[in-house]
């Protein structure tokens, strides 16, 4: 059925909606279970788009009261399906607002306040409320500074940053300092953390920004290995096959051994130019042990201008062969499975042969976070052993 073009299926649904009542009224969640399942089944390379489009014709003609059910279905969505469902909600909301009918504020509000609901779905519900009643949504933010939704939390934190700045403008340095200190532990977005840290430093406070953001600072590095012509990215050098911290390896210019490298850079960067001096056409490995109290899924977030590969406990997570384009904190987000106890993080970072002044960086920055961006520190680090 779904091998035909999308438009082939659409008219029957559009006609049904038009002939029926203009808006399909929801009786129970079961009414939408199948279209929601279909939309949540979209997968790679456009597979499922045709079916999702047909399913959408059921959803978009629904009554606004059905919005919380569509939002709740986002719990089972991949990122592509999330956008299908977002479009469904926006389409319903647009039509509903245009018709002048009252919005289901209470239901949406309940959905927002239930923090076990999907974060993005809660944010979307919040935005729907904001469009019609910004005062209420603003008040709701007050209790969201510790929210599991990154977007809601950000906005709530931003409100408090404004309050702290207001205290500063009123010459209440003590009040501002206390508020900024509180915010430093609440903020998750890097730009907010950075801004809060600057404010605290201006107030004479000491802020350990790399620790606050949770950058891994204790590393052992081995290199340089040959990467002339970029071959080091694909080459499998011995540390990549098996890490042996006591081993000697044949490096690019002679024997190489693992050596300790303590990262002290403000932005968390682990610079290979420190132990090896600036080199070209080279690759090196960085090894770190990360202790976790329990098994859990985490984000490994890396930024680098260099080609890199990352492994967690021997499992390859991701690599990118790009040089000197850009670096940003959390530029690459990789999902990994920590086990209880010791975990091994291995990073290969390559330097190419560009000779421009701006092509000397040979480094990376890496932190372990939960999905919200909350830094997760190695147990040893948290107990002070890492610093």
């Amino acid at each position, binding site marked *: 059925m779904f091998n035909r073009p999308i*438009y082939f299926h659409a008219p029957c649904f559009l006609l049904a909606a038009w002939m029926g009542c203009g808006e399909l009224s929801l009786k129970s969640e079961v009414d939408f279970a199948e279209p929601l399942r279909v939309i949540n089944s979209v997968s790679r*390379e456009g597979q499922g788009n045709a079916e999702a489009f047909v399913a959408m014709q059921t959803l978009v003609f629904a009554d606004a009261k059905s919005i919380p059910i569509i939002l709740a279905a986002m719990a089972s969505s991949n*990122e592509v399906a999330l956008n*299908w469902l977002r479009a469904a909600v*926006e389409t319903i909301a647009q039509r509903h607002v245009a018709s002048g009918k009252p919005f289901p504020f209470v239901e949406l509000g309940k959905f927002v306040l239930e923090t076990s609901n999907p974060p993005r779905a809660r944010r979307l519900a919040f935005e729907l409320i904001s469009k019609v009643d910004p005062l209420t949504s603003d008040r709701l933010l007050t209790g969201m500074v510790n929210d599991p939704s990154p977007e809601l939390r950000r906005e709530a934190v931003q409100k408090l940053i404004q309050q702290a700045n207001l205290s500063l403008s009123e010459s209440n340095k003590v009040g501002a300092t206390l508020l900024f200190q509180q915010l430093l532990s609440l903020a998750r977005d890097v730009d*907010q953390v950075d801004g809060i840290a600057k404010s605290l430093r201006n107030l004479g406070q000491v802020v350990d920004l790399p620790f606050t953001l949770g950058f891994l600072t204790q590393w052992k590095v081995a290199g340089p290995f040959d990467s002339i012509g970029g071959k080091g990215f694909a080459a499998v050098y011995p540390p990549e096959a098996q890490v042996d911290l006591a081993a000697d390896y044949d490096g690019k210019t002679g024997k190489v051994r693992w050596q300790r490298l303590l990262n002290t850079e403000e932005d968390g960067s682990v610079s290979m130019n420190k132990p090896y001096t600036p080199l070209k056409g080279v690759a090196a490995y960085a090894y770190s042990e990360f202790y976790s109290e329990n098994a859990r899924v985490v984000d490994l977030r890396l930024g680098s201008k260099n080609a890199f590969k990352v492994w967690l406990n021997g499992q390859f997570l991701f690599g990118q*062969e790009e040089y000197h*384009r*850009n670096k940003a904190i959390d530029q690459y987000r990789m999902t990994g499975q920590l086990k209880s106890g010791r975990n091994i993080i291995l990073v290969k970072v390559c330097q190419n042969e560009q000779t421009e002044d701006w092509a000397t960086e040979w480094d990376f920055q890496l932190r372990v976070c939960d999905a919200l961006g909350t830094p997760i520190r190695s147990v040893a680090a948290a107990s002070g052993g890492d610093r």
Partner: protein
Amino acid sequence: MRRILAMVCFLVVFQVWGGDWLQFRGPQGAGVSDETQIPTTLDAKKNIAWKKALPGRGLSSAIIVGDRVFVTCTSGPNQERLHVICLNAADGSSLWERQFWATGRTTCHEKISVAAPTPVSDGKRIIALFSSNDLFCLDLDGNLLWLRGLMRDYPNASNGLGLASSPVVVDGVVVTQIETDGEAFVAGIDATTGLNRWKIDRPKKANWTSPSILRGAQGAMLVTLQSSTGISAIDPKTGVEVWKYSDGASTVPSSAVRGDTLYVPSSGITALQTSTDGQPFKQLWKASQLRPATASPVVVDERIYTLNDAGVLTCGDTTEGKRLWQLRLKGPFSATPLAAGQHLYLVNEKGLAQVVDLSKPEGQVVSELDLGEPIIGTPSIGGGGLYFRSDGHLWKIIKS
């Protein structure tokens, strides 16, 4: 006869009606409008029909379909919220807006934006691509038809500086050129289903140029793909290469098309003409003195215009590539100039719009309008209006 045939093919391919501006640099990606009502003197009080605040950043051009204007932008601390906006061309009022969450990486250079690629329309649908490689197809009323998360499909296809190539639609195929150091491909995506019709590997090197559309020797439309290696002309239905030019080309300014000739930023400018003598194309000339910087060249009648890093507008003739004159403008420029009639419309990075009268012997700036905000994106011309967009606003300029 040849010209008439070209026009017929063009109209069939694009299904346009007068005044539409359906893609980056408009019809055929040429940057030339046949509108006759675009003002040649720009006055803030007399000519700004409306100025619309946008909810986020962007440097994509607005496109115009009938009485509607479509524009993309991004918001959020990491530009992870993607917006597709539809406005009423008459008064700038909002008709609808759709927002999406980026599914791919959004890191980019601070000067540019995740909303860098210009959306494209076939007159029935809007197809919006973002630097996160999210691709959305909506009908003109904002109903989502299909979507793709191309960075989820092809995870290494990203550039830390951001991507900017704008897709084109030919024969029901959305040609999406995504070329980075880590992964490079061009996908021919079915405009109806959102599925790949074909996908070809491309040179793994960062590239920000957009495809152009050129009539081939057999009359069928070809899509020309520009990269550091040169030009590859492909059949949009299959992705099969029809001919290639291998003398290298720029990875920033895109080629310009006029008639049956492609003007490629290669060794300055190289003119490649569709050939009817059995060869796939004929190289007419190379002109190093016409080298463009960021902005793409524009061809008006028998003249080609390029902008260099110093903000100097160079005029060359399209017969031999000979430089005819140069005119220093107030730069620097990132936006590509557009032409309507005998006037060229340019806007520099500070937001100063400048109008150059091309009928004067060595060109002459005849009007300026300070829009007061940095502008990186290329303007648009459609429905009797000239459009500029910044990170914060979209302006419509009309004849008073």
